[in-house]
């Protein structure tokens, strides 16, 4: 336990402590607590999980069981911008694979990884529900339709320029 806390020294536990105050003695608190903790930290760091486990009187193993089940929870730090390349049927037909390769090549990361500068996280998703404008890439809350690899290159450059 000790070396883990030193490894993650930068984690500020007080944020999660505050969240947990509202959920004292509440049954079924795990998911809302995890959601709020993720909103506060951007992801779910190990010391935070341990702290949640202790306060909710559960084992960390159980909590991780929940956290790894839902796609909404992330155990690794995420970038400032989330790049979601749609791999649904329509996008696939319109060569979404080329978009994924572009991201990989441009950001030098694989799926579910984050760039070293913590600017981008790359994810592939099943369907964004915008098949009419396939292929689709969604960056944060913004949807980019009918993207070509070159267009995607420019879009990413724009995000890079504007930085954090």
């Amino acid at each position: 336990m000790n070396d883990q806390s030193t490894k993650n020294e930068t984690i500020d536990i007080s944020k999660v402590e505050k969240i947990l105050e509202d959920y004292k003695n509440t049954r079924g608190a795990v998911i809302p607590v995890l959601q709020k903790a993720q909103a506060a930290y951007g992801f779910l760091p190990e010391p935070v999980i341990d702290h949640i486990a202790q306060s909710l009187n559960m084992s960390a193993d159980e909590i991780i069981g929940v956290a790894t089940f839902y796609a909404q929870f992330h155990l690794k730090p995420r970038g400032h911008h989330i790049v979601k390349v749609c791999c649904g049927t329509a996008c696939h037909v319109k060569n979404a694979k080329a978009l994924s390769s572009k991201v990989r090549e441009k950001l030098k990361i694989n799926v579910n990884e984050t760039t070293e500068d913590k600017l981008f996280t790359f994810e592939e998703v099943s369907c964004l529900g915008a098949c009419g404008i396939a292929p689709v890439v969604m960056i944060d809350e913004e949807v980019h339709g009918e993207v070509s690899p070159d267009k995607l290159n420019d879009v990413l450059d724009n995000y890079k320029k504007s930085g954090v």
Partner: protein
Amino acid sequence: MKTIHLVIEDKPIIAPEGINIFQASLDNGIYIPGLCYHPKLSQFGGCRLCMVEVTERRTGHRFACAHPVSEGMIVKVNTPKVIRYRKSVMEYLLVHHELSCPICDKAGECSLQDITHELNQSPSRFKAVRMDYPMVRDNPVLELNRNRCILCGRCVSTCKEIEGIAAIDFQNRGIKTVIGTAFDRPLECSFCGGCVAVCPTGAWQDRTLGFKGRSWEFSKVPTICPYCSVGCTIILNTKMESVRRVTSDDYLGINEGNLCIKGRFGHEFIHSPERIKTPLIRKNGELYPTSWDEAIEYVAKRFQQIKNEHGGTAIGGIGSEKCTNEDNYLFQKFCRSVLGTDNIDNMANIKSPALNGLIYESVIHGMTSASLKEIEHANTLFFIGADMTEAHPVAGSMARKAIRLNNANLIIANVRGVQFNSIARNDIRLKYALGSQIILINALIKVIIDEKLVDLEKVETSTNNFDKLRSLIDKFDREEASKITGVTQDAIRNAALLLTKPGNCYIICGKDIEENPLAEDAIRALMNLCALLNPAYRGDAGSGKVSLFFSRSHNNSQGVNDVGVVPGFLPGYVNINDASNKEKIEKSWGVKFPDTILKKDAENVIDLALNSKLKALYIMGENLVVNYPNGKKIKEACKKIDFIVVQDTFLTETAQLADVVLPAATFAEKEGTFTNMGMTVQRINKAVKPVGDAKPDWQIICSLAQKMGHSCSYVSPKEILTEIETISPMYAGINYDRLKRKEFHWASSVSNKNKSTRYTFSMVKPRSSEIRKNKDFPFVLLTGASLNHQGTFSRHSKSLMSVAPECFVEINKKDAQVLQINNGDRVAIESDQNKLTLKAKVTSKLPERVVFVSEDYEWVPVNILRDRVHTSVKIYKETV
């Protein structure tokens, strides 16, 4: 309970309402294949194998484990359609499951293998995709091979529901799902091995077995665990006269197949190379191997000589909490009738001398009438001074079952914040100040009386002395009590409210209460509380049960006292000075007790030795030097004894002082009976031949008696038990052969006989036990049980030693900060008696100014520090 009539496989069946088809079939001997359902676990419904055809209003297919029985239901287990379905499920399961049966320890007892075989499973239509997870081998006793896992979830449920730990869970989702720990950290659990026991495949394995035999080669001998006083049934798996592993049986004994780390993995001591294999005799200051003839002759000669010169009373005897009832009975008979001494005792009685009398009284009054297994049916559980998780883990599992299935309420009162994980809705923890237990109990009584939580008029008419108790309690102030105990008035009140709720209320009185100097008062106060809680006075008149359990340390700590290895009391707690009983026993044994036996000195065996009144000491199965709670005193006492005979399985610290050491057989190598802390007598069975020349204790005693000219010709423990039955009315109705099938609970037969006894309340003044404050030694040393170790056996079990190699001193966070002690630092604990260096463990469980050291790490002789129960110590960081 409402019953349901249904038909399964053309067999008419009556089943209780609410159970599922799977359980109903199981109860009626109808087989439905299934991998995830387990009767002792909650329903999961994951393996999809137990599909059956069900006709209720119309015919359809249902999962047997997830569908409740209903009136008039017709169930078919083996229709062609069901079998086709089942085969395809197996086909899917086997796509991923590596078929490593030839190198899997589970082969032969693997449900997956059996079902594959039984379905005549043909080669799969699919391409087999084998997983390639690395073996998880991060601890000494359990290993997990995820490639063999079918994700049935049994281990996850066991860990959560039975052990209350949840050290493992499903991780990830879909095809990537595995069983594992958070962040793949090493397994941190109690190592009960429950996961191995319930695993239907070879995913979880017992590393103590590790390819030491195939499952079909083992002969399986059910017997009773030799560690704590719960008395779990364990199955010794033997091959070629050696115990290869321990398994459990869900349908045998009181433990439903649950065991703790000691029970399941602590068997290696049986074949430890350090066992004593021949008698040893001291010549020129050294112990040398010798023959049985020489050893017995020498011991007999010396005993006779001392008896002739100084009288029989100059010989003392220490019986064993680990030996069988028959061994102990014969031991006291030998001491009393052959040696002519009543200076015998056992460690349990030495540590808490008032306990035997109180337990017997409690049994007579019907307050200790339940057997341990009944804890499962509790509605309210009250653990006072008991650390269930460490001391009686499987009884803790029974409690968790009550909490899970009956919604039982839980109250835990302890000086330390003991760990007990539960999902109880009402879970009250009363962390009382050291020494204030009597005040706490009286405060509970006061709330009950003040708020009329029970029918006080009925109490008054059916008991004696209630008015006196009332006036005593009236003077007692709740606020004051709250101040002294450090427990809020609200918490005390809530606890009292839970205790008086309808249903079964079981109270477990722990070692902290029993070994306290004020034990007698505290237990009497608890008995008062029990008397008040009698269901007859509560709302639910008559239904429900109240029972008080007394913690005992070892497997037969209860039995050794029951069969009379206690000064002044013959078997069955018969006072030796009671003329009629004495005569009966004299007649039966064919001896006449010398008058010297009856003139009882107030001193116990060790005091006699200290006062040089003891010339010889005969110790059977007890490491006296380490376990006696005053290290200095016992050392001096042993020095003053001329002749010490130790009969044991290992060369313990005590045996090293002996003049003659006689090698004894372990529990696995002999027959007999053990009595657990719930007064249940259970039979142990011989699984292997004794190692070397070791002999069962009763045989050794027999040959000694014969050598000393007494007839002692028992051929088996059966004869001894029959004799015990004729002598002690307590055991009336016990039958050695019947014990093989059914345990015997002596408390219920004794309390049934005394049903009409009226309870008289004892006046227990609410007072705290005095904790001597000392400026030089500002801390108080508490000792207690350990989950991982107990006695001589665990220290010679390799696996237990590697799980828990070191004994820690626990210290409160604040104190640690002041003393600048960190986790793992080497610290010295010093009392005015002695000094010990241990590693520190900083915890928030303890109150300030209290340190805790377990006394079950036998090689860490914490008793050398102690001269009383609450020894004052100082603690400081050891500088290198």
